[in-house]
């Protein structure tokens, strides 16, 4: 697929890791402390100059302010700085890149390293500098390349273009993940296709980390990185050791998964019945979905939030599934489509009912995710942050909403429900003003020190990869590995065939406008800009978007903005869950700059509201 590829779109100029503990005495040469320096061809004396000066000046400022420096700017470069455990990281980009995103990038980089290698200090004790340098280089190049400028602005997940994919395939992917999750050692998983997310059960940040390994195995020849699984599955399955932070793990573990159901069913089913079961499930599901949909509301194809939306929908729509399958576990989803009054639900489900009721009253397919979800999360979030803001509290709350019976839900799903419930209230009432930042970001700050070893299991079917985070003992548990492998194999093959047939899609029909819609909760981006050559007309849009995004980040109360230069006018609007940017191009924007109510720039909000409907973006 054509992509806005620019190898140095981040314009990253320097990155280095400097170990200050190696340079203590007067006579210690600075080079002793340099663990990694990018670009690697930089002359050593320049490396020493930068490391020495930056580390020194940062020390000076940190002492003056009694607080570590987090960023510094030169005339030509901006550096994000991190200091931990005597290590000193600096990531330098050109000054056009907002400082905020450089800091974010550096955190990502460090977190990536910790995810695959564990603690930095320990890694440097156990491994040679050279081998770890290769790792840094790999992570850096992964973060630097392969995404469009817009994706960099929002540091969003690269997802498949859901506009071109049959929604049923997304359902299928979500179901594969759920099936795998029933195996106890499996924590969560995601499905990736050619370096893009098809469906994920993990937080955006964790998904991003998993994708590095996937892209590595995708581009290179398969190279098992850790203890490989038994050869019985051939080279399509690999695994590698990874490290989760405490909060990441708590977040994953606290998600209610119906393990009982799974372990109960496992002994009775060998691989092949499961396979058939799964495929039958999927075909059944297809009918159900089309039946249960309001015929008037087409599934908006451009929605970004497919994964969580799907897992939600899968609860909603799969009602016949359990009853038709051999496993007759009592399963709540069937009742959910029915009016709340028609079934005897327990009283603690009342809140859910109201949610589903509002879903139906909205009647707009998945639109609720955007329309209601946005002005709303904050209310819920404020509860959560009141509880301490950690994953535990968040999930406890979620759990209370869902009730015990909603066993095999994954975390996103649960979150979406919470959001939605509040959202439906918010939509009827007024929009709350204060909006704390989405909590999902708080989970893996670079400060997390305790790292828990886990295993990343990868099952590749050509371009398609099933990546699962599993407990380390999973690999030695033959029953589990086989169960996961065989239960998903056929579905993966099928999914791969379908996705392959779609890619590469037909080029977009040219619109007379550009938009970008960012879902802050799931960290996904919808835009009609991708697939086009990175031409001149788009660039002002990207520039304006970057600028507006920065202002939205800095000013909590800012909701809408229109900015106009001599050649372009861009409209930006945001709620707590989403940011949308819109520009009409072409046409004469000639104006005197003096306020004039018939000015085309001021009709942008109305135009955006109308035009973006067909992309599944609902603006108020």
């Amino acid at each position, binding site marked *: 697929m054509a992509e806005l590829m620019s190898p140095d779109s981040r314009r990253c100029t320097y990155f280095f890791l400097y170990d200050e503990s190696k340079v203590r005495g007067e006579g210690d040469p600075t080079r002793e402390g340099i663990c990694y320096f990018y670009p690697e061809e930089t002359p050593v004396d320049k490396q020493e100059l930068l490391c020495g000066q930056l580390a020194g000046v940062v020390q000076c400022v940190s002492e003056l302010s009694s607080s570590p420096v987090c960023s510094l700017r030169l005339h030509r470069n901006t550096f994000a700085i991190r200091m931990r455990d005597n290590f000193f990281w600096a990531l330098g980009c050109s000054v056009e890149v907002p400082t905020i995103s450089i800091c974010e990038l550096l955190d990502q980089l460090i977190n990536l390293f910790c995810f695959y290698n564990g603690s930095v200090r320990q890694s440097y004790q156990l491994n040679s500098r050279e081998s770890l340098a290769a790792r840094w280089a790999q992570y850096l190049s992964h973060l630097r390349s392969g995404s469009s400028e817009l994706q960099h602005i929002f540091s969003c997940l690269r997802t498949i273009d859901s506009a071109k994919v049959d929604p049923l395939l997304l359902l299928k992917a979500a179901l594969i993940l759920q099936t795998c999750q029933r195996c106890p050692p499996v924590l969560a998983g995601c499905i990736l296709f050619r370096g893009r997310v098809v469906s994920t059960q993990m937080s955006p940040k964790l998904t991003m980390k998993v994708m590095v390994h996937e892209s590595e195995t995708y581009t290179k020849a398969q190279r098992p990185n850790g203890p490989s699984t038994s050869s019985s599955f051939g080279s399509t399955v690999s695994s590698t050791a990874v490290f989760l932070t405490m909060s990441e793990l708590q977040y994953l573990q606290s998600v209610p998964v119906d393990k009982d159901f799974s372990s109960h069913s496992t002994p009775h089913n060998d691989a092949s019945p499961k396979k058939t079961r799964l495929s039958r499930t999927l075909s059944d599901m297809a009918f159900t979905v089309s039946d249960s949909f309001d015929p008037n509301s087409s599934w908006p194809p451009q929605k970004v939030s497919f994964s969580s939306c799907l897992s939600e929908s899968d609860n909603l729509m799969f009602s016949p599934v359990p009853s038709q399958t051999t496993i007759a576990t009592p399963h709540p989803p069937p009742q959910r489509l029915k009016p709340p009054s028609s079934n005897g639900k327990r009283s603690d489900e009342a809140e859910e009912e109201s949610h589903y009721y509002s879903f139906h009253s909205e009647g707009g397919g998945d639109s609720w995710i955007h329309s209601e979800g946005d002005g709303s999360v904050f209310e819920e979030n404020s509860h959560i942050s009141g509880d301490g803001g950690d994953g535990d509290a968040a999930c406890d709350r979620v759990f209370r909403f869902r009730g015990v019976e909603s066993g095999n839900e994954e975390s996103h799903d649960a979150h979406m429900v919470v959001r939605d419930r509040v959202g439906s209230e918010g939509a009827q009432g007024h929009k709350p003003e204060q909006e704390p930042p989405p909590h999902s970001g708080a989970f893996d700050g670079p400060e997390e020190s305790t790292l828990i070893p886990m295993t990343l299991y990868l099952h590749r079917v050509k371009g398609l990869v099933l990546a699962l985070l599993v407990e380390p003992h999973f690999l030695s548990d033959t029953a589990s590995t086989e169960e996961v492998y065989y239960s998903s194999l056929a579905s993966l093959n099928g999914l791969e065939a379908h996705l392959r047939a779609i890619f590469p899609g037909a080029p977009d029909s040219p619109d007379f406008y550009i938009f970008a819609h960012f879902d802050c909760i799931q960290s996904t981006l919808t835009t009609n800009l991708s697939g086009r050559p990175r031409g001149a007309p788009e660039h002002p849009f990207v520039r304006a978007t970057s600028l507006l995004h920065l202002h939205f980040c800095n000013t909590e109360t800012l909701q809408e903005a229109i*900015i106009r230069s*001599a050649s372009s006018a861009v409209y930006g609007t945001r709620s707590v869950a989403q940011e949308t940017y819109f520009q009409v191009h072409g046409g004469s924007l000639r104006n005197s700059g003096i306020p004039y109510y018939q000015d085309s720039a001021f009709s942008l909000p109305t135009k955006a509201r109308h035009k973006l409907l067909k992309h599944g973006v609902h603006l108020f």
Partner: protein
Amino acid sequence: MKCLLIASESAEVLFHWTDPAFLQNIQEKYEVTQEEGQRLPAFEDSISTLFAPMIISCTTLVDRLGDSYTSFTTENNHIYVLHQFEECLYIAVNGDGEEGEDDLRRKIYVMKKMIEVLFGMVTLSSNLLRKELRPQDTQQRARLWKHLQSLLETYSQLRENDQSFLVEAVERLIHPALCEQCIEFLERRLVQHLNSSAERAGEEVLHAFVLVHTKLLVFYSTRSASKLTTSDLLTLIILAQNMYPSNIDTDDPVPEDIENTSSSGPESFYTPEPSPTNRDSSSSADKPLRGSTPVFEFMDPDIQMAEDSLQTLEVPPPGPLTPRRVFLEVSSKDGLYPMMPHSMYCLPLWPGITLVLLTKIPTTAVAMSVYKFLEAFSTLEKRLREGQEGSAATRGPPNIQDVRSKLDKFIKVLGPSEVQSAQLQNVWTEFKNRAFARGGSGFNKNLIPWCKNMKTQLCGIYRQCFLIDSGPADIPRCLSPGLQERAQTMAQEKLMDWKDFLLVKSKRNITMVSYLEDFPGLIHFIRVDRSTGQMIAPSLCTTERGPASELGKGPVAQFIKSKVWSLVSTTRHFLRKGYSTVTLRDGDFYFCYFLWFESETGYKLEAGDIPVLPDDSAPIGMLAWDYYWKLLRYYSKNQQGEMVKCYELLTVHLGVIPTDIILQHCRQLASKLWEPSRNPLL
């Protein structure tokens, strides 16, 4: 927690200003390391030691990388902004969240502007400026630094509280009839009287204006005067405000201050301002209420005139009625001359009302010559640096032979009596030997140090002529005290009946009430004419004791004020990136910002491209660096010979007002701004 530091490349502190919180922060660092019983090191030493690694690292990076630090941010949100002007490194720090990076950069540029106005072309020689900013004599140094510190504080006060210093344009009092009368008074009576007097000692009044607090009642320039730039005028207002601080809260002098001053006999000078430490401790406590404004100290005007620290650099505190030497831009037929010497007379009429006279001093021609020579040597140096040699480097303009003969003449006129001119002559002779003589090296890279040396010598001459009181003391060098008193009395007589009206008017120049009927939902607006550097805005009075604006007092008014302040900084950020129209829906408010160009006849011109500037470029405004003048020049390139005017409008509306109504309001406010009495406002 604020600090501003100027350091030389060798980490020598040339100036520092800190607020009490920062001071305490520094001292705590030393208390930890000091052993029991040991005294704390002098503050200047502590600050110098703590900042030294940063300053030295800056120098190292410039030398080896050709790049340098522009800012640091720490996790607890302390911001450090650094900027190097020639060999002086300015560092501004904020640790209390009240100032952003832009504000700090602006402060640095304003500080530099004030130093330029006070020291003129001496600032062009880092070597001389270093000596000037850090006099050997510690008492002198303390006096100078205290003066600069109080100027900086006055500026910060104004920037935080005065809308005209927020947008950096001059606000006039709207009273056309009185203004007209005053112009007539200044032209026909006052200035004529002064300029025809024999007691003026060769000085000539060029500009005269009356300030009511920070607002301009009347401004008059003689025919021979060149236009006073907005940048200079704003700086002069800061100087005047610093001399006679107007207390926003009260008009009446606080009793204890009168007691303080009553003890001072005829010999005593301006009551010394509290030391920075004491002063700051009060300012931090009363910060939100502006309580830190120095209390107005009203006393005999003659005695007040004594406060002049510039002149105290070299000589003991001068007598009363000594003018302040200021260096202002002059545009004449043959070009632009920056930093030409003037004398500034600030004559207080009543508390809050000041008459300012700017005079041309008799030796202005020397300053012009020095500037031309400096320019010639800079051009030559630049060409030699670029590798041009021989005739390529000397090809005009300026013609090097021309410069040679003029400089010969100039030195002859100066006469060798002074040490400084003798030195200049020596260096010039050496330069000529190398450049022109047959045995000399001619015009090549070897001449570069000699170009520099010549520039330093010329700056030295300039310093001697305009910064140091030289010559026999009995020859009068300024308007005589009697003449100044006469001017003061004349102005007082003229404005006596208007005094109270003016003091009230200055606080409620125009009020939102008059606009509410025509513009329902409008909360506030600021309109600026950037071509003339003037602004108009309804008063925003947020202090407890001052007169209330329509917004009332206390938190609401304070909130609106903070929104207006942040809107200005946001729109500047967008303007820097090339966006001349910005609308923002922020909370319950809807903000608009428009910048547009008109021809002189009022015809709307098409919006042009606005240059995109890096984040660390000079601040957008007119005080320290005239962004709009540059913008107008840039825009006018495409307008054949037509005079272009540039306007800005900011509005704050209630968010519930429909956008098209808001835009109609903006349109009306933009097309013509009238006072309800039909007086045009701008």
